[in-house]
């Protein structure tokens, strides 16, 4: 019954990458996505959705990070997504207001 070891990640830096990508990267993607969405939709509505929907999305992203064979690729993906969402938010909020 315990999970077969041959399928599990053995190297420390890969484990570290997957756990941090899911936990930190997943959080960054979640929060930046909702903050970008708040520019188009009703701000308060998006924010209260973030309070509960954010946890569900974040948990999902944590699971997805473990599915990658290479944890650093998960980091790359989350970093790109979070950067895109943050950029959308940043440029609309501070330089080119809609």
């Amino acid at each position, binding site marked *: 019954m315990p999970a077969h070891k041959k399928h599990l990640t053995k190297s420390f830096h890969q484990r570290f990458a997957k756990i941090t990508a899911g936990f930190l990267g997943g959080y960054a993607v979640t929060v930046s996505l909702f903050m970008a969405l708040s520019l188009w939709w009703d701000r308060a509505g998006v*924010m209260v959705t973030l309070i509960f929907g954010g946890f569900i999305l974040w948990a999902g992203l944590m699971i997805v990070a473990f599915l990658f064979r290479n944890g650093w690729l998960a980091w790359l993906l989350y970093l790109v997504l979070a950067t895109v969402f943050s950029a959308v938010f940043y440029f609309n909020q501070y330089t080119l207001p809609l």
Partner: protein
Amino acid sequence: MSNRIYNVLFHTHTVSGLVISVALYVIFFAGSISFFRDDIIAWERNQPIKAQTQMNADFDQILDTLATRYGDLRGRTINIRQPHQERNVAVTIEPSQDTSATESAKRSVYTYLDTKTYEEGTYYSTYTLGEFIYRLHFFAQIPYPYGYLLSGFVAFFFLFAIVTGLIVHWKKIVSNFYLFRPWAKLKTVWTDAHTVLGLIGLPFQFIFSVTGAVLIIGTTIMLGPASSLIYNNDRDLMYRELLDQPLPPAFTNHPVDFDQSPNELVKRAQSSWNNAVLGRLCIQNYGDESMKILVEARPQTRGALLGLGRATFDKTGVLIDQTDEESINYIVGVDQMMRRLHFGDFGGYGLKIIYFVFGIITCFVILSGVLLWVEARDKRSTEPWKRNANQWVASIFVAISLSMYPSIALLFSMVRLVHDAGDLAPHVFIYSMFFTSWLILSIGFAVCRNNYLTNKYCLLLGSILGFAIPVVNGVVTGNWMWYTYNVQQLQIFVVDAFWFVTSLISLLVFLRLKTRQPEPLLEKEAPSEACELVEASTF
């Protein structure tokens, strides 16, 4: 699903579940009892409250009392709420905005006021057993913010464990649902119980992991970046927007005489609502030209699950605006829904009992998960020292978890028997009583290293101490169960009946427990010599 993904998710489920197990057990056990928080407080104070009598207070008298005690109310905003079903109301008074106000009127006030005797209490002097168990379920006894963060992240990782567990179990959901093999080896028993009860409890557990995380770390963690980047650290603005509160009127510094009776205003507001439950009375800028009186109410849960009615009066008692008590928007609706789902306060005692049973089922799922983890590794191919360490982990986890039951039962009787009602710091007594007995029982059972024995005697102890609670209450206060039932002091009756029924069930389980002690690990399979050596060197 590929074999790799199955095994990877299986492992994340095991590790995340094991890491949070004890903390999650404490949360669910204390949380399940907390469904009866208000009843426990009424029981402890011997103050039964009639159902649907929330905020049944004389507001004129309350305002007069506050004015004599805290100085002139002019220019101040007064908030009166009753967050729980009890006799006290919570009052906050903001400092006066009038710059020429006296020193005492420039202080903010936070107090609890008894609506019958007008006695006041601070948070600690009105601290109760019910409040203690409620706070234990989010580790508020650990200094802020660490206790809150710990419980919030435990809830979040619980969500992770639920979803990974569901994915791992996906293919066997139907085929294994009817599978229970109580006479097979222990590992099989724990597996069957863990998966079937986990599946039955899945919606309940999903709701509680999400709402729990929302209520405890929703704003701090999820809104952290937004509060600084969107709301520019203006917390008043943020909360006003996210709780859908109107902008408070600007202070004009033109004093006016306020000759309206707040009781009358509340009555007028309520007359156009259909039997709504009063939630809040807020008087903004008292005695100023800009003064406004807000009365808020929610529908009775029989009528609608959610709703917020708000009536606004001006200084002369003219109704400016009123919304229907069943009117709701998305923003207020989300907040109310999270609380409704988490507190289980929308279906009377029937729903609370169902919620309680599901909470205890979840405790069982947590413990069977830990035991399953140990049994699955208790085999010849595992190194003996590892098996030994696993057994220690299991016995410590089981001892801490199960000894909560007798410790809480003992606490109820002790609060009734020994505790002095005039104590100004009741939390000291409650803390020392509970944590000492919990610690002693946990260590005692853990060093016995016999889960069967821990289970058996925690049940017996909990049962005996639980039976004692209605008896002690009857002897000390004269409120025997048949009396409280006859005079409809429902809250007090519910607490005594709760302990009577749970004690009866634990006693029956105790009597039906058959001795099927697994032989001690080291004698079972491993070659004895090597193990004795290991044992001698390990301990």
